[in-house]
Structure formats: C-alpha cells, structure tokens
C-alpha cells in the first residue's frame, strides 16, 4: 500500500513550502528557482514541487507535497491530488484578486472536492482584511460545497497544525461512517 499523502496547493507566495517545512521530519526537497515574476514579492518561487514527510515511527510515512502555484502548472495540481488523504488550499489575501485565485483552485479540483478532505487557509488577513473569510465561504458555497475556511499564517507551525487538525477531523468523520456501516 502506498504511503498516504497530503497535498498543499495555492497561490504563489501563499506559504506552501513554508507549511511543508513546518511539518516535515526531514528538510523538505524543494525545486525553487530565482523568481523572475515582478508581481511576486519574493526572491525564489517553486516551479516543480515540494516534498517532505512525516515519519510515523512504524515504517509508515505521510508524504507532504506542495504544488507549484502558477496557473500554468495547473496540469500538475490534479495529478498530485489524486488519492491524497487531504488537500490544503492556501490563498494569499494580499494578492490583487484572491477570490478569483480561489475560484481557479475550486475549478481545478472540482471533481475531487465534493468527496475530498480539504481546507482553505487564507493568509495575510491582518494586513489585508478584505475580502473577508465570509466572502471566500460564499464562493465555496455557491458551488454546493462546505469547505472550512480559516485565517492562517503559514509561518506559524500552530496555524499549519490547525489546518492539519481540520482535515484529519474530516478523515475521522468519514472513517467513522465506514465503521458504522460495517456494524449495521
């Protein structure tokens, strides 16, 4: 059986690499290159994928993948998310149109999201309070989905753990239903 994986996706600069680094037992493998996109306020950006892992201590590991954020790598997003235990979508609220960014990801994952353990983490909400988390939830709701939307700072390990806690709770809820089904 393949080791389970958790996928971090989202806009460039939203903190995917940072989030994986906060969780991984080993230094994450990154494929960052020097950023040539003037709209991104950072020196390096991920063009391939990030990889880290959490060792559960019994020979099993949980793999952590980070997708490249740029829309031109959309073809990789679904490939990475297939069979994932959970999907973490990170949005940077300081970008010009974060709601539109979210729509890109909801559309890219539209076939997976209805049955996927997923959470949306919105970063930089203190500096940029608008759009509000409610507006993100509205957009999700318009698609008939209920996906948790939380404010996060990916540099804070506790915030990243909060996102993990949410998707693990979703797994627990689904697993429990399976257990009940076998008892009936």
């Amino acid at each position, binding site marked *: 059986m393949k080791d389970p994986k958790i996928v971090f996706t989202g806009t460039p600069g939203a903190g995917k690499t940072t989030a994986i680094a906060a969780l991984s037992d080993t230094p994450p493998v990154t494929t960052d290159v020097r950023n040539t996109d003037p709209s991104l306020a950072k020196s390096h950006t991920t063009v391939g994928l990030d990889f880290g892992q959490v060792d559960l201590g019994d020979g099993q590991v949980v793999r952590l993948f980070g997708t490249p954020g740029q829309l031109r790598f959309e073809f990789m997003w679904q490939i990475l998310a297939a069979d994932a*235990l959970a999907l973490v979508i990170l949005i940077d609220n300081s970008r010009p149109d974060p709601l539109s960014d979210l729509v890109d990801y909801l559309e890219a994952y539209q076939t997976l999201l209805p049955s996927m353990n997923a959470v949306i983490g919105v970063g930089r909400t203190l500096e940029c309070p608008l759009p509000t988390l409610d507006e993100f939830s509205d957009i999700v709701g318009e698609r008939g989905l209920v996906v948790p939307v939380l404010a996060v700072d990916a540099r804070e390990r506790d915030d990243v753990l909060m996102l993990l806690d949410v998707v693990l709770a979703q797994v627990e809820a689904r697993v429990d239903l399976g257990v009940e089904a076998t008892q009936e």
Partner: protein
Amino acid sequence: MTAATTVRRRLSVLAQSVNVQDMLKVEVFLRLAQGRLRCDWQVSTTGEAHLLLLGGDEPTTIPGLLDDPVSQLQLVDGPGDGQQVLTRPLQYDAFVDALLAVEDKLLPKSPSATGRQPWSTGSFRLSRWPSAGLLQPHRYGVRLATFLSVRPVTLDELARLCNVDSAECARFVDAMGHAGLLSLAARVAPQSRGVPAAAGAPGERSVAPAADAGLVSRLRRTLGISNKGST
C-alpha cells in the same frame, strides 16, 4: 413571505473617538453586510445608539444619548480580552456578529426559534462554513463545524465523534441553527462493508482509500495534535 413589503427597523452605531480609517471601514462593512442583517444600520457620531463603538481611551460621554445602548464595544490595538472588545484592524466578521447580537436582543425571535428545534432530534449538517465570528465564541467551534461539514450527524454522534461535551455541542448546534447554517438531512445510507466512507452525499467516491482511524491517531500523536484539536 412578505419580505418585499417588510419595513426594516433602523438601528444606529454611535461611533465615539473612532478614527477616520475605522469610520470608513465601519461604513463599508455596513454596506457589505446589508444582506446578512435584518435591520437597516447607520453610523453616526451623535444621537441614538443601539451599538456604541468606542475608539479611544477617553471616558465615555455620549452627546445626545439618553438611553443606554443595547451593546457597547471598545476598539483596541492589542489582543482583546472579553466580549466587549473588537481588535484593530477591525474585522468584518467580528463587527457584523456584534450587530447581529444587537438585533437578536432587539427583535422578536421567529416562531421556529422559540420552540423545540428540529436539529435537536434529527440528523443535520452545515450548509455553509460559518463566519469566524460565529465560530469564535465556541472553544471547539472549528472542530465541531468541521465534523458538521462532512456529513449529517445527530447531536449524540457529534459529541462522540468530536470528543466534546454534549452540552457544548448542543450550544454550538443551536447557534448554527439560528444562523440558518444547518440543513436537516435524511440519514445517509450505509456504505458497502469494508469500503471507506465517502462524503455526505450517497454515491460519492472516496479519494482517500488509505485513510483509517489508526493512521489518523498516529499522525495526530506524531504532530502533537490532540483529538480535541489544536485550536
């Protein structure tokens, strides 16, 4: 429904010692929140106050105010302590929730809000992710909402799944119900034996075949996330 002909009550936010930036935010938030509010809210610096918003440290003096406001909130820069505080930068959800609380105090409750609630006996799930302001008052709000976002559950199931006291679950569910965020559901048909459960709607496929309760427990333990959540 005669919503089109219903006259909305006018309520006021009286802003005192609130700086220009926060005043502008309040005005924008009031415009944005019209659809969520049951009353027409306006902001002023004198006159009647249903919600008194204090922006500075000056003693409370309210020009033209004879009656006590229904609610009073202090804008503070640091982390706020207590329910009478809003922290800067002013957050939309927290502000609107304060207005909703005032409306709840002033307006008569709807008939469905006065009797036994439908969610006290049946299965239910969230129809939409709640605002931060709705989650905040509940210690395990995010965790409870997460379970309710996946599939329909009864109140007892929710308490068991979340490992949270049933009275606390009931308070949370009640709040979600009154906010109109719960949808009652028929019980989900059991899945085939051994097949991992899918999402709320029957017939959906699971995309996490490797998931099991043991894996989640070990991952929680390794990362230091308790089964009552990190929040």
